[in-house]
């Protein structure tokens, strides 16, 4: 990334840090600063609007259900490209914001190879080498970059169809749809991983923080880099505390009269 872009990103982070606050409680780490959260949700809003308006035009089976939500077919058609442009606009800044941690590395290849054990929850914790983002997140990010570019090019060709030939429009339409399907698949997985599958993750995009436990479980290398502590140390300490607590609970249940205030 060029120095200007990096500089711009730094300044934007600084400006937004003054606009909003991130409260970090004890046992928590800062995951996403205000600027990142602002970008993420701007991208998300315009992505969802683009997806819904686009799907209305894409699919004859849901056209009559979805188009009225945006004021009918013609209005849906008029709004869709603008939603798309705003999605690309905000994602451009998101790209600058994240391109460094999203850089593909050898460890990500190893992550992708072991995706089976990740999906089936066989591995309860991520491998030691997983940093700020894991291989799956990086794949999704680069898929959005690719789709975002394809959306923009093919979208403009279809928007200004009076300036290009009919075959270009006919091909653009398929590429635009394929990019949308790629995005849809990624989007479903992204929401699922961020909410139901990994408790504690959604908080990182709302409050900006995560618990330390979450950090060493899902992003061990990032945990080490931020706290300077090894994942194993934190994990062992937490495990000891947990065991002690369980023993105490068991003891107090065996001898209820000797119960100490917790």
């Amino acid at each position, binding site marked *: 990334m060029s120095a200007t872009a990096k500089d711009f990103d730094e300044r934007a982070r600084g400006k937004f840090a003054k606009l909003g606050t991130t409260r970090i409680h004890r046992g928590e780490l800062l995951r996403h600063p205000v600027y990142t959260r602002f970008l993420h949700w701007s991208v998300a809003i315009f992505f969802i609007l683009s997806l819904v308006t686009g799907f209305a035009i894409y699919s004859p089976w849901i056209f009559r259900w979805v188009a009225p939500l945006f004021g009918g077919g013609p209005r*849906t058609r008029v709004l869709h490209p603008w939603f798309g442009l705003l999605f690309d606009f905000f994602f451009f800044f998101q790209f600058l914001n994240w391109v460094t941690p999203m850089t593909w590395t050898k460890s990500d290849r190893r992550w992708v190879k072991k995706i089976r054990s990740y999906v089936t929850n066989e591995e309860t914790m991520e491998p030691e080498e997983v940093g700020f983002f894991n291989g799956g997140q990086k794949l999704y990010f680069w898929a959005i970059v690719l789709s975002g570019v394809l959306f923009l090019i093919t979208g403009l060709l279809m928007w200004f169809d009076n300036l290009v030939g009919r075959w270009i429009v006919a091909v653009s339409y398929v590429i635009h749809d394929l990019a949308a399907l790629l995005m849809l698949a990624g989007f479903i997985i992204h929401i699922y991983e961020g909410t139901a599958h990994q408790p504690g993750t959604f908080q990182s995009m709302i409050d900006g923080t995560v618990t330390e436990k979450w950090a060493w479980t899902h992003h061990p290398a990032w945990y080490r880099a931020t706290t300077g502590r090894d994942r194993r140390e934190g994990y062992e300490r937490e495990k000891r505390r947990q065991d002690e607590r369980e023993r105490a609970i068991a003891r107090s249940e065996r001898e209820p009269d000797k119960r100490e205030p917790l």
Partner: protein
Amino acid sequence: MSNPRTFQIQEISAHPGPVPGQGTRREEQVCKYIDVSTCIGCKACEVACVEWNDHPFRETTFNDTYQTMPTTEWNYYNLIKFAEDERDGNLMWLLRKDQCMHCEDPGCLRACPADGAIIKYENGIVDFQQENCIGCGYCISGCPFDIPKFHPKTKKVYKCTLCSDRVGQGLEPACIKACPTGCLKFGTKSDMVQIAGLRAKQLREESGFADAGVYDPPSISGTHVIYVLHDIKRPERYGLPSNPIIPPSYTYWKWLAKPVGLWMGLLGIGAVFFHRILYGPKLPQPEPPIEKTGPREEIEAGRRETP
């Protein structure tokens, strides 16, 4: 509309001889016949079209020909194209009345994503329903003849209707009515194909146009507007594609991959839902493993949060 055959007389009491008209079948397919060899370029059809459709006159662009304007427009469905050609060292004008071809397999209809914006009647007329049009312009790219035109103010697309309003009342299209030379005819598809064949034969045998023929392209299953051309081997000279085709993406992608895409979305949502049910969440570690056996209180205690 009721079937006109319903009240066709089948039997007549005490009637000698056969029942008149028994077994008569009406041919539903209509067709416009255009003989370019007898067109004189008077533009009466253009005026009739503009008048019948109650279109305002529009400004035109002069481009060194006798053509009214370079292409058909959203409020100018019918345009005579003045192509210049050479025959025996002399100028020959190829006067072709350009309008919607009313394809049997309409590319505009295939490309359109809006429910009910383009319809094709059983008689073969392809008609745009502007109230359902969303103005995406896909039909423009689906059309091999560059006919649908976008109206920037209303954001809708318009084209020749083959005067479906007149045809519905048993009248011929306005352009046909206005033509003074009889180079335009309107009738059933089979009649028009037959007349066109005869005229082409006449041109070949009597007028020295050895390559005269009928333009009714099979690549789009024929059209409901057919031309008699002096030279069927080179329709490009008249501005007609020799092999008009609809981009395959509008056929295969739309009707095969679109439902597949929708199902992918639904199955994807189902897949993550059942993944959650079957494999459970990925919790921050250490999370005490839940005992499968043992009293309920212990399990609940194990779940209790640490301060």
